[in-house]
């Protein structure tokens, strides 16, 4: 890492040799207990949670630079991500998906007179994209937990953290470290290694936009499974009962502001559109202003990262357009001092009717007469929904969560927890470890 990201080998022979060495490391992995692997991986992850560890310090510097986030934000991201890489949550992940984790170590009775075992395979190829730090390391850990060696191509803004985790792992357990390799190349420049990995991997895991996934799917052998994590839309919903007073509403807004600010709105978990219910003492438009105040005060402790010229130009278009609409009496408003701290776009239409942009720390707030109408509003987005921060009284949460779930939302949470799903969450509604194994049945000889 000292001299830039690790690049793929130039020749086919070197590429072949890299993949061979990963497979060989897999032979050693097969002999280890999965619960022991969780402990070793967890020990490596804990180093990145230790503020005094030189690796953590290096990670903060590099992540801030590479992902264009502020240093405090880099620290928060590493803290949050590495929180899921420690031994306890990793063991919990294993036990959630495999109540008997030994099923990854050998054949186990299935309770129906035969035996069954889960195999992770001998080589997997994981492809990250974008610049959310920590996605690559999480993906790598999942593969190693199911004992499958992994070649990771991280996203452009996620190289440093992936490499530093692997370094921590290698320093903790050299043999386990050999079962993972990281190489980075810009899209379309993977050469021999990419071609070989696509041809030879038992399974491919990819994170990215629909174009990337579609292109990748077309390149895979028909028999190679692809585990795809598409880009997602997350949001928020605030019930009128929780806006009983300005103080209550401001507290909700502060939590929402933190969910927006974390990852500077880049995460699939980041709430881009928040619907606020009408009929409470605090009106949705007033709540939008409180949200803007929350973002502004947060920018002191959790400063925003850099905004690219292109994103800024598009946001300026939206700011000016909302101002023109307001001038025309449509009820649109823009709150917030500048693009960097984040603007809150209040759009009086409840539907996602027109293109709207919520990027960097900007967010769209929409009023809704009743949150039960969200099902109608969100229907066009049902295939891409993921996390929803829901702030509602307990007696409404179940019903609202059910209607969100029926639309395709896979995680209903609070704004406070929204940026940090637990290590054992059902990622996009799937079980991330079970997605990485093949089941083998050993039928009774009787």
């Amino acid at each position, binding site marked *: 890492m000292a001299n830039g990201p690790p690049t793929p080998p130039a020749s086919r022979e070197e590429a072949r040799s890299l993949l061979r060495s990963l497979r060989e490391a897999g032979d050693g992995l097969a002999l280890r207990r999965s619960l022991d692997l969780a402990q070793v991986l967890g020990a490596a992850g804990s180093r990145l949670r230790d503020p005094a560890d030189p690796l953590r310090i290096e990670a903060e510097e590099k992540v801030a630079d590479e992902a*264009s986030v502020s240093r405090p934000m880099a620290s928060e991201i590493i803290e949050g991500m590495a929180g899921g890489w420690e031994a306890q949550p990793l063991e919990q992940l294993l036990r959630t998906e495999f109540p008997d984790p030994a099923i990854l170590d050998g054949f186990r009775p299935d309770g129906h007179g035969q035996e069954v075992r889960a195999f992770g395979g001998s080589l997997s190829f994981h492809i990250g*994209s*974008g*610049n*959310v730090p920590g*996605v690559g390391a999480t993906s790598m850990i999942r593969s190693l937990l199911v004992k499958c060696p992994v070649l990771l191509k991280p996203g452009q*803004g996620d190289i440093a953290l992936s490499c530093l985790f692997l370094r921590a792992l290698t320093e903790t357990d050299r043999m386990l470290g050999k079962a993972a390799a990281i190489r980075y190349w810009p899209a379309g420049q993977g050469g021999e290694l990419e071609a070989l990995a696509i041809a030879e991997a038992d399974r491919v895991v990819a*994170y*990215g*936009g629909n174009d990337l996934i579609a292109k990748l799917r077309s390149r895979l052998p028909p028999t190679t499974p692809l585990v795809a*994590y*598409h*880009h*997602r*839309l*997350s949001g928020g919903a605030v019930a009128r009962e929780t806006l009983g007073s300005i103080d209550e509403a401001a507290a909700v807004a502060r939590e929402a502001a933190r969910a927006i600010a974390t*990852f500077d*709105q*880049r*995460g*699939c978990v*980041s709430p*881009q*559109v928040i619907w606020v219910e009408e009929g409470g003492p605090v009106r949705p438009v007033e709540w939008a202003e409180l949200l803007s105040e929350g973002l502004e005060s947060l920018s002191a402790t959790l400063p925003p990262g850099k*905004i*690219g*010229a*292109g*994103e*800024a*130009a*598009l946001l*300026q*278009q*939206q*700011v*000016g*357009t909302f*101002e*023109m*609409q*307001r*001038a*025309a009496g449509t009820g649109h408003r823009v709150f917030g001092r*500048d*693009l*960097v701290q984040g603007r809150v776009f209040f759009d009086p239409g409840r539907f*996602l*009717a*027109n*293109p*709207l*942009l*919520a*990027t*960097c720390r900007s967010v*769209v707030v929409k009023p809704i007469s009743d949150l039960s109408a969200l099902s109608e509003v969100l229907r*066009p*987005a049902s295939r*891409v929904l993921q996390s929803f921060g829901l702030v509602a009284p307990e007696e409404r949460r179940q019903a609202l969560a059910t209607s969100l779930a029926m639309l395709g939302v896979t995680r209903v949470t609070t704004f406070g927890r929204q940026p940090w799903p637990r290590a054992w969450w059902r990622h996009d509604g799937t079980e991330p470890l079970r997605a990485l194994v093949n089941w083998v049945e050993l039928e009774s000889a009787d």
Partner: protein
Amino acid sequence: MGPVTEVPSAGERFNRLALEVFRYQLEANAVYGAFVRGRGIDPSEVHDWSEIPAVPTRAFKEIPLGYGGSRPVEAIFRTSGTSLGQGPRGVHQVRDLSLYRDSLFGAANRFVAPAFRDTMKNRDHKNNIRLLFITPSPTQLADSSLIFMFGEWMRVWDDGAGAFLADSGWRVRGDALKRAVEACTGRGTPVLLGGTAFSFAHLLDQIDESEIPLPPGSVIVETGGFKGRTQAVPRAELYAGLSRTFGLPLARIVNEYGMTELLSQFYEPVLLEGGPADPEERRHIGPPWVRTSVRDPISLAPARDGEVGILCHVDLANLDSVSAVLTEDLGYAVEDGFRIVGRAELAEARGCSLLAEQLVAAARPPIPT
């Protein structure tokens, strides 16, 4: 010596007119007036054209931007789509087409006509230039400001046998173009071949490696425009292909930069200056009644010299809508014009979230091509 009357410089004259137009528009366009006041700006404190509050191009999609008078508008031009997806189309209401005509010819006479000045209006009062456009005709596409401009060129410059060679779906008839060019070659009539970048790229794909050499003295006017399309060809590659296919030197391929929201156009002055051939080294210049400032993308304050920012135009030909227009284009200022670096995109800093606007775009049917 008698009293000396100071002649105002071009800059001072532009400034005076721009402020006059700004004040007129505040009154004539109530929404714009409210927009300016909403920004807390006192119009009497605006003393320089670059301080005039600019309306984003995207606002043309949401708000009818025209004068509030009782006379009917003469034309309504619509945008084709933007990089933000296939949302609603921008609308520019034009009250007085004669102003647009004067503006478009004012610029084109300076930047395009030199290509065939020698052939203009011979003794028979007939031009010896054939205009071929690989676009739909003004009859097929009455709401395009670009096609209107091509139609005007056709009306005034063409020798009488010019043609629009695409159907209403922008499908180019490659064979018809070939025949039209051959007819010119036989008579030694130079051709002005015009179209959007997308149409040219599509045409090159269609005719593959075959060549359609244009007669000596010909010129290509390419108007940019991959907006809203998924396919984009790098400009250097497109120009190399055009040069090869049509047998023209690169310096005879001119880019026009315009948009529905502006009634003035900018051109690369390659025909005036004989180059440069490399598209990357070129710049754009407009007529005297439009000026461009480069704005810092975050603050919208004037960008520092040579720094990339958002292009913001003040176009006095937009008399009856709004003259100050903030674009989605990024570029930097050069001595007498600007260089375009590209169009605003989101790819640079995205994570794994899907933008709400992409989602909305995805839910819409595609633009027919």
